[in-house]
């Protein structure tokens, strides 16, 4: 059976070149970078090389890169660490309504500790209006965090415009670039942000490693206390092979970004234009243009995501959904709801995220196998039956 992996937003495969780069550090070169003897030297040098590579990917100063264990850790570190370090100036933070849970729930935890959190709403494309950020800024606002792009609906947020406002007001701006760094150009200077999260497994690097970039001079409290690895900002023995892999993945992403974007955009656009031609009552989620290159997301009306996902899986296709049944919390994606979709429509969420191994044939395979699945499921859907009887949509 054809196997088609279209869930690169969940995680990407490791590039062979990245694995090759990691291998020595899973073998001979096992030293601890903190060690003063010659077993530590190559490990330490490898970590510093990776730091240069990651800094290069986002146009940062090398010493400003802090390696972490995941995108989630980077976000927790940023939100909690920046808020805690600036507590004397105030206790109000602003995030968008479509942030990843690692930002959202970090903010919830801060609320329990006495911080106040404002959520900026989004429009029907999931886009934040910078003026909505401005309106929420108060005298005691100490942090704004808006993601660079959303992994569920692909929408790219106007970070540059938000940064103009936060800069003017002298408030640190963090952006969760887990979905963008290594995928589209990300330059911390051009964006104008003060802190930025990224993760290896989003651009063909390893799992278990991420980075937080924090502009020099911006104070942050460590999330992991202990030894003085990472300039005293993130304790713990460095995960050398994973860091090396992240560095290599960053280098390859920098070198091949244009070509990758070209490929992914073509595949995405093919699916986005052709799927609605094959299936009625399909809504594209996220911004129609300002979206991640390999990211095609839809809601298919009258039916539910998990059952589509299961049928697709039986056809060898891997996708995601933001439906309640596919989430372990059994709640429909907060991103879809924040974008104004009804719960009913949100249950029909399907998310195709292409990767650098994807092909036109993959798209065509989807266009072939999905319509009969939709038909089948609609035939047993009470919502579809009602719609047909009423002769109109139920939205």
């Amino acid at each position, binding site marked *: 059976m054809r196997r088609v992996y279209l869930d690169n937003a969940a995680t990407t495969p490791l590039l062979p070149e990245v694995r090759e780069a990691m291998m020595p550090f899973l073998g001979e070169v096992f030293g601890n970078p903190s060690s003063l003897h010659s077993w530590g030297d190559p490990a330490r040098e490898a970590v510093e090389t990776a730091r240069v590579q990651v800094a290069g990917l986002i146009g940062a100063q090398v010493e400003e890169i802090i390696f972490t264990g995941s995108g989630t850790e980077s976000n927790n570190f940023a939100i909690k660490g920046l808020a805690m370090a600036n507590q004397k100036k105030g206790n109000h933070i602003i995030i968008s309504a479509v942030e990843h849970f690692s930002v959202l729930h970090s903010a919830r935890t801060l609320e329990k500790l006495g911080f106040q959190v404002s959520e900026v709403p989004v429009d029907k494309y999931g886009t934040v209006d910078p003026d909505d950020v401005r309106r929420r800024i108060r005298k005691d606002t100490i942090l704004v965090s808006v993601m660079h792009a959303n992994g569920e609906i692909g929408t790219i947020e106007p970070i540059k415009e938000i940064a103009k406002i936060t800069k003017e007001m002298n408030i640190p701006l963090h952006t969760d670039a887990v979905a963008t760094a290594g995928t589209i150009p990300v330059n911390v200077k051009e964006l104008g942000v003060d802190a930025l999260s990224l993760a290896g497994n989003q651009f063909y690097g390893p799992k278990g490693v991420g980075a937080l970039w924090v502009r020099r001079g911006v104070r942050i409290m460590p999330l992991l206390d202990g030894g003085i690895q990472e300039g005293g900002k993130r304790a713990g023995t460095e995960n050398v092979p994973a860091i090396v892999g992240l560095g290599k993945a960053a280098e390859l992403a920098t070198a091949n970004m244009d070509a990758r974007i070209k490929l992914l955009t073509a595949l995405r656009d093919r699916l986005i234009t052709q799927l609605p031609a094959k299936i009625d009552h399909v809504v594209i989620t996220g911004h129609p243009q300002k979206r991640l290159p390999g990211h095609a997301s839809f809601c298919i009306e009258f039916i539910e995501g998990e059952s589509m996902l299961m049928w697709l899986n039986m056809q060898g296709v891997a996708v995601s959904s933001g439906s309640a*049944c596919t989430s372990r919390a059994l709640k429909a994606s907060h991103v879809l709801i924040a974008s104004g979709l009804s*719960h*009913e429509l949100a249950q029909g969420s399907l998310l195709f995220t292409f990767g650098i191994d994807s092909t036109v044939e993959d798209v065509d395979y989807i266009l072939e196998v999905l319509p009969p699945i939709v038909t089948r499921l609609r035939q*047993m*859907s*009470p919502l579809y039956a009602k719609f047909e009887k009423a002769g109109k949509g139920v939205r």
Partner: protein
Amino acid sequence: MPVYSQKVMDHFMNPRNVGEIENPDGIGEEGNPVCGDMMTFYIKVKDNRLEDVKFQTFGCGAAIAVSSMVSEMAKGRTLEEALKITPQSVANELEGLPKNKFHCSNLGAQALHKAIEDYLEKQKKGVQA
């Protein structure tokens, strides 16, 4: 994939008794799109027995399998027997349901009961009228 039993997968892939009954003797609806699962059961009753049972389901794999299984368990049974079908007995027949799926998707028995109640209600009204 969610850890579904073979039985669940069978009923998900080949659901029995899908559809609508024209002029049913009773209709029962359960669930709502917010939690992601919704089921409608239609029944035809003859001599206190479920002569026919059909369903429509919007929902996850488990919800579809549950509906199918309920319809199969109910068909041909007396109303009293059918009212004894419980979420637990359905889950047992399906050789288990994932823990987190139990409550949300396992609304089939309730939907069936509602259809039977609907029938009984109508009967009462018919008698009264």
